[in-house]
């Protein structure tokens, strides 16, 4: 199924505020949207959930920000997945091991 993906305004604000990303890095970041859109079934099936019955799964997206390869965790609600909608509720840049 091809999904419609919508993003919470807070997620967009958070990602826009991340410093040091090049334009190419931001384009690489955006790639997670294509994965959710085109491979949403695999993501819903394979990505971890806090509990089996939770409607929220975590998609980790790894990409080159420009200065470095980093990962962002996206928390996606598929409560309306059957209707073809995935909602990105929350995002967090994964800290580097040395950042703790």
């Amino acid at each position, binding site marked *: 199924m091809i999904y419609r993906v919508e993003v*919470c*305004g807070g997620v967009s604000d958070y990602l826009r505020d991340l410093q040091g990303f090049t334009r190419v890095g931001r384009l690489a970041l955006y790639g997670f949207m294509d994965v959710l859109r085109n491979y949403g079934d695999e993501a819903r099936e394979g990505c971890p959930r806090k509990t089996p019955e939770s409607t929220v799964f975590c998609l980790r997206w790894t990409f*080159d920000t420009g200065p470095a390869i980093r990962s962002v965790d996206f928390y996606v609600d598929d409560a309306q997945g059957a209707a073809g909608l995935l909602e990105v509720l929350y995002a967090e840049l994964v*800290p*580097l091991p040395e950042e703790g």
Partner: protein
Amino acid sequence: MSTNVLPELAAESVETAERLIRLSAGECLDAAEAEYLLTSGLAAIQRLPRLWPIIRRRIGAGTTGATAQQLLTRLLDAVDGNLTLAGVLKDSARLLREETGLEPEAAAALATGEEQLRAIRAEAVRLLRAVEAAARWPEEEQLKKAKERMQGGNRLSAEEFRRALLDE
């Protein structure tokens, strides 16, 4: 989420290293055979530093954490296999030197290749640690509030989000 050729290339590198290690352990090798294996092993070791930038670029272009983890794990298997091969070949080079009195041509390049593999290993391990870090799940309350905000209209379509992200 698509399959690609890179894990297979890394696996092929592991197999080659293992085969050359096995052949180099042969008891009846003469100097010419040992030198041939040394040269073949060196070529195998020198291929990996060309594979690493391809894998790095593939990850850098954007991939799921699971795919990045798979690529890095396969690469590290290949690096470790080739570091073991480098150790075996160093012994072969020493025996050749003792037998012929001449330094095999490949010996110096072997040291450089081993150094490159160690540098790749350090970078790949650092990256893998980051990719494997545990997710820090937000509180239920944070998710609930985000959902309420979206229901209240604070939501972006894919195209709106793209434009916002790229400042267009």
